[in-house]
């Protein structure tokens, strides 16, 4: 393997695949992404905003450190990274060989359009005679057989949908650049020496056409949740207005039907699709934004599964503030309504009344497609499967799953002795180009377009205007920049000429962009000294208008300066705080990458909540990791120790810990992982403290797993879910309780088959495959009695024992039970870590969980670069989930630890110390805490690892003592001047 750059293959370019690819690219691997469809981005391409904040923020997934190597763009538009190559319309045929040296056979379906030649002019689309339902818009509206498969994506060119193409040849004739090739023979090709493969093929959604009672296909106003996303999307078929597909009328009343294709044994779907509940709430909220005040949104559900940290409050807001109605009833069928195109639903409401209501539109919350299997090669050694390929995951779940798969693969490679390219990648520092040391000499390259008929006279006009420009401006004409001949000429001009800045006056930058990137490899020209102006696309424009564009490009180039920042060294070790499941798995993952880890644990033993975990399998997996951690020479364990101070920036932290003995120890580390955990919550609800037989579900678990339990006389046990949780002030779902209570109940039934078990619940949160436990519990005769926040059961402690009073909502009759035991699902709370929060300057939620940088896209990063969070410290999680988060955090940390130094990027804030007044406004406004005062030097410094070049600092600095490279004040003002 030696010098060869290890290559990773990622199958699937949805959010998981992109995350895994970026992870590998970040630590220096070459990555190849193959995607079956013609576009990168997966289902997220079709969605504009996400729960639980109705924001987008997909761009936040882009790398922070290696910013320059990936084009800075919305990920919906494509994935651009120097180390990542993307093959769309490509599938894996087979994988063979040994890990580290896999041979992968791939099959590619031609796009029908040459990406090198296509200039996005769209003439092919205009002439194509074949119109088919627009798949991107879920069949709403039409598109041509040749089209941009994802209208907002420009990473690939036009593409032919071979299924509908008639090969009439009109497009071929119309294409001005000869890019269309009507040849759809699949080609098979091999990829050798693939070090590892990540399967991130995602999950397909259930197709509701088969549900005859919902009238899919028959009623145009019954749509899937994905179609609804397209309807409200500004880039969708109705340009973002919420109207019905049948007649374009404004939607005033819309309903969501949950669990379409999920939680249905009749179609073999004994699972919950996990994301649909939140998805529906989000859609309802987005709909409300677009609807009139008196409009109605109703969600029909069985259990509203708001099992994420912030989800319950989101639901409550939807209900109380935004007026989304929630009806607990699964709807039987959709019938036509009073008026044509209306849809009628009949249901039984919570007061057992039968209601018939007409809606304008009905959205089916379709879940995961049942019965989908992974391909055979997924089990090949050296192939790792991301969680999202196994079942539907929300975004953070997909991201974490991808990190875990990537992490496991890179651990295996480390073990095999396979390294990424080299630790200190020979990074071209574009900032240090020689060009910046010289006065700008601008070369304008005018493309003599072979396609536009009157290009010649246009160029004459431009040239005569350009000649009036003061200062040196070399002008040269080149034939057809979009073709190789033209481009070779450009390279020749660069080599021969004396210019140190380049402006291209040509067409679409999507065509030029990739070519300009190539220039970097072939010449001394870097893309930061190249600009382009589009003089050909769009409607005919005046010379004056074109000259302004060119003038702006020239002005931008003239103000480009060299970068003065130095690289920052990285200390290649990690500090992990907390020795519970999350911390242990993070520490081990890093140690397996041959990284030194300091593991600091407050208590006298490692394992955290392991002591409360009864489940055999889970116990075993944690114990296994615990043993490995304890035996690992790279992990230095400090028990009964606490962190007292920490300072520094990403890559270089200095922390002090104090042992119980009073001894203090200083630790140097490059990253910090916070895995401070959580614990069972306390509650005084339901007379918790008034009777010895009222116990928490954790105590119940212990009890039922104790050998003595079988000897007890147990006739009846009652469990009450959400005791003191999912209402203020602890208004979140703890995620673990439902599953634990169900397991306890099943265990009780196993030992005492005749015992009665009753579970009072608000919403059973058996998300994903754990739905099976719920099914199993019902099968075993456990009785479930739902209640609302307003109809909580009552617990009375009487002389004779316990009495639980409630109401059966289906029958509307009181229920009175005298259980032997009462188990309360009290939930979990994060450990109290106020000191750490202060030391690290990180943010917490109102419930004391550590806030991530972004709950969707960067779930284990904190707002502070170099500090990561996992497990219960971040959000309620099951132990297995917490361990995965630990691995994910380790993988994120590896990005930093895998480098010897952090090389400054061009897009960076800089301080001109000589004129800085040290007012520190920049420090206060920096959203990334990337600025600090170097007290020794008396200077304000920029942490180049944290700074992302947003320029908030520059905008608040009154005298431009802070500036952003390439966005300096003079440059921008000159561009403004040129524009006017």
């Amino acid at each position: 393997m030696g010098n060869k750059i290890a290559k990773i293959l990622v199958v699937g370019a949805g959010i998981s695949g992109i995350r895994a690819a970026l992870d590998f690219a970040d630590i220096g691997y070459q990555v190849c992404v193959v995607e079956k469809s013609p576009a990168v981005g997966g289902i997220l391409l079709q969605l504009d905003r996400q729960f639980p904040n109705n924001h987008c923020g997909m761009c936040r997934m882009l790398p922070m450190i290696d910013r320059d190597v990936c084009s800075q763009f919305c990920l919906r538009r494509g994935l651009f990274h120097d180390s990542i190559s993307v093959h769309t319309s490509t599938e894996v045929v087979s994988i063979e060989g040994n890990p580290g040296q896999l041979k992968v056979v791939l099959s590619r379906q031609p796009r029908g359009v040459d990406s090198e030649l296509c200039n996005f002019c769209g003439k092919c689309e205009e002439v194509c005679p074949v119109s088919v339902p627009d798949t991107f818009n879920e069949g709403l509206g039409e598109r041509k057989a040749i089209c941009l498969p994802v209208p907002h994506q420009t990473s690939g060119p036009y593409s032919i949908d071979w299924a509908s193409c008639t090969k009439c040849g009109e497009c071929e004739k119309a294409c001005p650049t000869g890019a269309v090739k009507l040849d759809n023979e699949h080609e098979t090709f091999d990829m050798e020496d693939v070090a590892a493969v990540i399967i991130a093929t995602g999950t397909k959604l259930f197709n509701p056409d088969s549900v005859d009672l919902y009238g899919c296909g028959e009623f145009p106003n019954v749509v899937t949740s994905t179609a609804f996303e397209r309807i409200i999307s500004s880039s969708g078929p109705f340009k973002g207005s919420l109207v019905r597909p049948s007649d374009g009328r404004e939607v005033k009343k819309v309903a969501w039907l949950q669990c379409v294709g999920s939680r249905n044994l009749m179609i073999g779907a004994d699972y919950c699709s996990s994301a649909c509940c939140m998805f529906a709430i989000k859609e309802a909220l987005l709909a409300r934004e677009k609807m009139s005040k008196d409009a109605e949104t109703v969600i029909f559900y069985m259990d509203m599964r708001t099992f994420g940290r912030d989800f319950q409050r989101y639901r409550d807001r939807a209900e109380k503030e935004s007026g989304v109605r929630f009806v607990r009833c699964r709807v039987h069928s959709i019938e036509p309504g009073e008026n044509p195109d209306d849809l009628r639903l009949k249901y039984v409401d919570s007061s057992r009344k039968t209601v018939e209501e007409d809606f304008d539109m009905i959205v089916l919350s379709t879940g995961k497609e049942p019965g989908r299997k992974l391909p055979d090669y997924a089990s090949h050694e050296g192939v790792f499967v991301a969680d999202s390929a196994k079942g539907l995951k929300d975004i953070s779940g997909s991201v974490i799953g991808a990190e875990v798969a990537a992490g496991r693969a890179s651990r295996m490679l480390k073990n095999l002795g396979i390294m990424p390219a080299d630790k200190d990648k020979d990074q071209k520092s574009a900032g240090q180009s020689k060009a910046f040391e010289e006065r700008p000499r601008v070369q304008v390259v005018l493309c003599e377009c072979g396609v536009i008929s009157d290009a010649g006279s246009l160029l004459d006009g431009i040239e005569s205007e350009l000649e009036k420009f003061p200062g040196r401006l070399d002008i040269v004409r080149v034939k057809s920049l979009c073709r190789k001949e033209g481009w070779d000429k450009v390279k020749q001009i660069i080599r021969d000429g004396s210019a140190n800045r380049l402006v291209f006056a040509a067409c679409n930058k999507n065509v030029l962009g990739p070519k300009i990137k190539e220039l970097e490899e072939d010449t001394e020209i870097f893309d930061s000294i190249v600009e382009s102006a589009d003089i050909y696309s769009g409607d005919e424009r005046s010379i004056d208008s074109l000259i302004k564009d060119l003038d702006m490009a020239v002005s931008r180039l003239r103000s480009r300066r060299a970068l003065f920042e130095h690289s920052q060294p990285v200390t290649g070790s990690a500090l992990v705080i907390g020795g519970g499941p999350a911390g242990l798995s993070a520490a081990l993952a890093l140690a397996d990458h041959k990284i030194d880890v300091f593991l600091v644990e407050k208590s006298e033993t490692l394992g955290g909540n392991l002591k409360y975990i009864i489940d055999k399998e889970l116990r075993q997996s944690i114990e296994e990791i615990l043993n490995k951690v304890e035996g690992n020479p790279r992990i230095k364990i400090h028990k009964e120790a606490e962190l007292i101070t920490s300072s520094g920036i990403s890559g270089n932290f200095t922390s002090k810990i104090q042992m119980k003995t009073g001894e203090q120890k200083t630790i140097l580390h490059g990253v910090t992982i916070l895995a401070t955990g959580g614990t069972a919550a306390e509650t005084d609800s339901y007379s918790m403290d008034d009777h010895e037989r009222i116990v928490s579900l954790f105590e119940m678990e212990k009890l039922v797993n104790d050998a003595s339990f079988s000897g007890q006389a147990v006739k009846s046990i009652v469990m009450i879910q959400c005791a003191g949780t999912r209402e203020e002030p602890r208004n979140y779902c703890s995620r673990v309780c439902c599953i634990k209570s169900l397991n306890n109940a099943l265990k009780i039934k196993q030992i005492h088959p005749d015992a009665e078990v009753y579970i009072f619940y608000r919403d059973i949160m058996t998300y994903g495959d754990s739905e099976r436990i719920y099914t199993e519990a019902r099968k075993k005769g456990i009785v479930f009695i739902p209640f609302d926040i307003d109809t909580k059961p009552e617990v009375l402690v009487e002389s004779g024992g316990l009495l639980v009073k409630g109401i059966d909502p289906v029958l509307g009759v009181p229920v009175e039970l005298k259980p032997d035991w009462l188990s309360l699902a009290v939930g979990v709370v994060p450990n109290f870590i106020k000191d750490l929060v202060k030391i690290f300057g990180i943010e917490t939620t109102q419930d004391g969980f550590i806030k991530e940088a972004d709950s969707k896209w960067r779930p284990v990063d904190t707002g502070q670069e170099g500090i990561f969070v996992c497990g219960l410290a971040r959000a309620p999680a099951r132990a297995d989930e917490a361990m995965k988060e630990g691995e994910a955090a380790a993988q994120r940390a590896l990005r930093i630890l895998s480098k010897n130094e952090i090389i400054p990027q061009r897009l960076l804030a800089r301080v001109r110390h000589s004129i800085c007044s040290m007012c520190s406004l920049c420090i206060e406004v920096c959203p990334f805490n990337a600025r600090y005062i170097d007290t020794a030097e008396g200077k304000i410094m920029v942490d180049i690892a944290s700074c992302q070049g947003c320029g908030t600092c520059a905008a608040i600095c009154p005298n431009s003592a802070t500036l952003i490279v390439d966005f300096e004040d003079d440059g921008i003002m000159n561009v403004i001047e040129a524009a006017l």
Partner: protein
Amino acid sequence: MDTITSIKSSEIKQKAPLRPIESLTDMCMACGTCSAGCPLTGIEGFDPRKIVRMVLMGMDKELIESKLPWLCTMCGKCEYACPMGINIVSIIRTARGMVKRENVPGMIHKGVELCLKTGNNIGLPKEDFIFIIEDVGEELAGESGFSDFKIPFDKNGANLLHTLHNKLVNTQNEDLKHWWKIFHIAKEDWTIPSQNWEGVNWGLFSGDDEAMKCFVGRIVENMEKLEIANLMYPE
């Protein structure tokens, strides 16, 4: 309805006659699909989910004694959509069967008894039946194009055995002619049994398995006797 207390102890379960049958009620998650689909939901307190819930809660006695089982039309819409595949219709039927026969509402049980005795639910004697049918047959023969129409009673080896809905014999016998016209034009080889011609099995509705079996058996007997392969059943 009373308070539900400690309902599923094994003692009660033994007493609860609906438990031992192959009911899937435990699987119910009270989702409401059945209620939402049932055309009767809300009428006189009917709701299929309630029935399932009563069984699940061990309230069989209350269910059997209530009129709920009798409100159901047995259309099966509920069961068709139940995501857990709960056999709602058969639960209701079983419940009906457990009702003391004298408490079976309306004329259904009377009909069953008459049928057992006479071979049809309205207790029509054979002669009267033949008279009515032949009368209608003659009427049809009077219409143009049907002059050669004749009622084929008990024809051995016919292709189709034609059982009749007692309503058509009793009150709406004009409707019989529609069938027969089709048979005649299609040149169908058919026959009507002169005995045990009842095509409506009220044993099914009253939950009386024995009677139902008997009624079905009579038809089978007729078919075997006349060596007929196909049956036309008006329900």
